[in-house]
């Protein structure tokens, strides 16, 4: 080796500095930096230094491609935005030039330099240091090949709300098997509880039930209601999912769904799920008439037979002998290639805001209660009445943002409550002629035909009071308040405190993550946001994927949204999965961690750390192992292994240290080690 080769290790590196319009060039002297790279880093292997307006444009990418061919580059450094945004772009360009894509490294001189500095001279120097680090690092890069895993054709969908139904039908209609797991006795989710849907006011059941029955009879869909997922093992393309089918005490093969059992069942139970406490069901029940499947289940905890040892009325009257009190939970395992989590939302518990009186003042209702009340099949046969069940209200107050946009509860906007409140205003107006007040902070009606609906409700004469309601009380102070609920509010448009007496108050409660969302996320190896909604791989560009390959999310489980958005996500998740099934196998990013067996001591420090459950301990060899198909290359275990026995491809010690050394080469004067005293 000549002296120069010793420094460059024979490398030929191209450095490309992006202007990003003025994003970078406005702060960093990009021309100077690219020239400097070529001159000053020449003895470290840099043979090309160029700057370009937009490196991510076709022309920018071609620059890389052509230089690899013409200049014989063997490594590429792109100083531009961030790997998160454009690593793939530049890796692809590198590959088109004939190099392994992983021989390209990005220096983030936008997010980490131009966007965070104002002093041009210092920013320019820092950009140089970043490039110096990238140059040293890229020399340590190795050619990598993606892993290929075959994709099992079947898909698991968890949650049979409209999101899960949509996904299931899309995939099943394309000819592929689907397992749909729903924890309740019927699919349908929240949408099955509504009467009308905004903004078109079409009947919820009329648009939902055809989809539900299609699922029920679809030859490609195995419907597993009254079931829950217990365990998920494996990885994209090859998950083994353990499902518990809860004992229903009904033999579905024999049951005709005639309903005699629940007519004869003597045990009335307050239905706090489907009827949100407004109505009753029996101990043997289907949640609603159009339930899919049609088979009832016995609610073990409330059944007289299980409680007292005698009754069995259902069994006696069942014409087909479909009741089986010996039924037991059944645990099955299914193999699937992909998973959709469509577990939806829970409604905010309005008792948490005691000053609004829910649970204390009889005529304060939640939004879901009101939905059930307006439903023709609901507990009041669709009549809007006070808690006494007979009196129609003459005035109704609808409170927006209950538990939403409130620092004490949820900072976010629940997105549907404005429209839902407007829907309620319309229904009250239409069915009772009562005077309606909507108490709002802002009206948010951004989707198709939403604002038109708002105009319509305005025209109908609904009163709008802008301000957050302070209190709902029955303590009358002024004439005309007796026997009423008084809504105390600061009207911020009128600039005054107001007390508005009404007969009925409806609280438009927030949508919240399922109470068990965190456990569900952990079970499936995905993450939740601080609020508890499932986290997307990318909030804008990959909203139905997660950081765990093969696990997709749709509907309200990812955040509050209306039915159109929920359905779109159900379809989107299905589309992503269909393309995986179509491909037959999947190429996975080769950035993965591996345990170097001879260095691992089996200390087990790493065992519980992997967020994707990729690490297991082999008691026989006393070593820990990483399942590379599960590993996402997050680096947690690499940092934690005390023996340094885990190495991350793309993040090896050599690479990281070379990068640090490169960074420091420019900025720190070498300090003499301790001069004699």
């Amino acid at each position, binding site marked *: 080796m000549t002296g120069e080769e010793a420094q460059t290790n024979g490398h030929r590196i191209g450095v490309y500095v992006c202007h990003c319009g003025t994003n970078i060039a406005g702060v960093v002297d990009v021309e100077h930096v690219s020239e400097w790279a070529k001159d000053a880093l020449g003895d470290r292997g840099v043979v090309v230094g160029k700057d370009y307006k937009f490196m991510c444009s076709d022309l920018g990418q071609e620059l890389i491609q052509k230089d690899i061919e013409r200049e014989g580059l063997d490594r590429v450094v792109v100083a531009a935005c961030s790997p998160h945004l454009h690593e793939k772009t530049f890796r692809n360009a590198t590959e088109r030039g004939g190099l392994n894509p992983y021989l390209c490294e990005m220096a983030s001189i936008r997010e980490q330099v131009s966007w965070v500095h104002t002093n041009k001279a210092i920013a320019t120097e820092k950009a140089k240091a970043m490039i110096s680090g990238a140059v040293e690092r890229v020399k340590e890069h190795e050619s990598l090949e993606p892993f290929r895993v075959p994709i099992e054709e079947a898909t698991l969908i968890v949650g049979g709300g409209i999101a899960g139904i949509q996904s299931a039908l899309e995939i099943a209609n394309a000819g592929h098997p689907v397992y749909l797991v729903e924890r309740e006795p019927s699919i349908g989710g929240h949408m099955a509880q509504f009467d009308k849907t905004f903004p078109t006011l079409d009947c919820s059941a009329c648009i939902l039930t055809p989809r539900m029955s299609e699922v029920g009879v679809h030859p490609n869909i195995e419907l597993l209601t009254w079931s829950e997922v217990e365990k998920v093992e494996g990885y994209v393309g090859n998950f083994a999912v353990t499902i518990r089918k809860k004992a229903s005490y009904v033999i579905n093969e024999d049951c005709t769904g005639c309903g005699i059992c629940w007519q004869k069942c003597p045990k009335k139970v307050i239905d706090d799920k489907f009827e949100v406490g407004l109505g009753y069901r029996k101990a043997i029940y289907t949640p609603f008439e159009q339930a899919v499947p049609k088979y009832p289940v016995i609610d073990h905890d409330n059944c007289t037979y299980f409680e007292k040892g005698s009754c069995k009325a259902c069994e006696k009257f069942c014409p087909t002998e479909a009741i089986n009190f010996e039924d037991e939970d059944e645990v099955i395992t299914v193999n699937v290639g992909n998973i959709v989590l469509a577990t939806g939302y829970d409604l905010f518990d309005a008792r948490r805001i005691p000053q609004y009186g829910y649970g204390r003042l009889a005529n304060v209702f939640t939004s879901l209660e009101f939905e059930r009340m307006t439903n023709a099949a609901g507990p009041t046969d669709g009549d809007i009445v006070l808690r006494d069940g007979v009196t129609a209200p003459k005035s109704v107050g609808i409170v927006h943002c209950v538990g939403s946009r409130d620092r004490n509860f949820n900072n976010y906007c629940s997105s549907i409550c404005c429209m839902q409140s407007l829907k309620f205003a319309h229904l009250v107006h239409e069915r009772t002629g009562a005077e309606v007040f909507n108490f709002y902070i802002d009206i948010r009606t951004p989707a198709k035909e939403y604002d038109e609906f708002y105009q319509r409700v305005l025209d109908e004469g609904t009163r709008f009071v802008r301000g957050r309601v302070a209190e709902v009380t029955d303590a009358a102070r002024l004439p005309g308040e007796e026997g009423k609920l008084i809504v105390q509010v600061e009207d911020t448009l009128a600039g005054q405190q107001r007390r508005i007496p009404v007969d009925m108050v409806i609280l438009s409660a927030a949508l919240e993550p399922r109470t068990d969302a965190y456990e569900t996320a952990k079970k499936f190896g995905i993450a939740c946001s601080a609020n508890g909604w499932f986290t997307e791989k990318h909030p804008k560009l990959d909203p139905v994927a997660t950081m765990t390959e093969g696990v997709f999310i749709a509907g309200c489980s990812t955040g509050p949204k209306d039915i159109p958005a929920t359905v779109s996500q159900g379809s989107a998740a299905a589309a992503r999965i269909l393309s995986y099934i179509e491909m037959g196998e999947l190429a996975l990013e080769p950035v993965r961690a591996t345990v*170097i067996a*001879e*260095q*691992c*001591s*089996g*200390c*087990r*420090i790493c*065992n*519980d*750390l992997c967020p994707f459950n990729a690490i297991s*301990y082999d008691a026989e060899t006393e070593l820990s192992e990483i399942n590379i198909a599960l590993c996402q290359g997050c680096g*947690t275990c690499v*940092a*934690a*292994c*005390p*023996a*340094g*026995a885990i*190495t991350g491809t793309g993040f090896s*010690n050599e690479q990281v*240290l070379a990068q640090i050394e490169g960074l420091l080469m420019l900025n720190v004067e070498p*300090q003499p*080690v*301790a*001069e*004699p*005293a």
Partner: protein
Amino acid sequence: MSENGKPKFAMYWAASCGGCEIAVLNIHERILDVDANFEVAFWPVAMDAKYKDVEAMQDGEILLTLFNGGIRNEENEHIAKLLRKKSQLLVAFGSCANEGCIPGLANLSPMEALFETAYHTASTENPEGILPQYEYDVPEGTITIPTMYPVLRTLDQVVDVDYYIPGCPPESHQIEAVIDAVIAVLKGEAELPPKGTVLGVGTSTVCDECSRKRDVKKIKQFVRIQDVERIDPEICLLEQGILCNGPATASGCTALCPAAGAPCAGCYGPANGVIDYGARMMASVASVIDSRDPDEIDAILDGLVDPAGSFYRFNLAHSLLHTGQASWNGKGS
């Protein structure tokens, strides 16, 4: 080669306690193998020798030098450089030469503080407050002693090193194994390992040799060994909340300390894949603390009363930190 045809051997003691020298003598009758195969050219602890004899040797005249101790003063450095020149194979022997060891912990303190502790604290009988002088005039002339450096450096921070044998001190069976290997090379029966090899260690860590049972680690509390009423003799010490450095320490000692019920102090130095020993241990221990509550985590960490002394007891001088900030800036002298 010497006149008797035997290759020359040297051993030297720089800034260290001397345990390494004893460890070599402690190989008992196997020391005769050393004598049978080498001529001891320079070994101040074992036989009389003068620096000038070494200075007079030809470059590379000594085949093998075991150098123990760190470089703390001018004399240490001078001899390190001299032995480097005169030896074909220079071996950093023992923890001090390898990674600084206990003397390296002094790098956390400026020199005034060291002198203060050494000459003026209760443990020293020094009523007149005398401090050593580098130069002192006496009627016969000027006496000098070697000047002290502001920090301790490891051997390879001063000269080029061929091989490393860690341990405080290295275990006898490992020393014997290395001697056997060198003799095999002399007889032409084996080849030298690649330069830079760490000899006398295994590929994994102390845990690999430790027979204690271990489970998934979850630490709720740290306790110091003297505060533990009963140590479970079977279960991993770390799982009992006793900070054991076994997970990051190179195997080779046969896990003597944990076997005896004491946590591994880390004297065998960083395992193969470990660059900064203390940082590694801290990252590992932090990742298995079993709490999500910041206050509880703080309370658990408060159980680690001496982080520098626990995590960097042997490795501070050779860590990425090298030295304490004050000394690095030259303020230490």
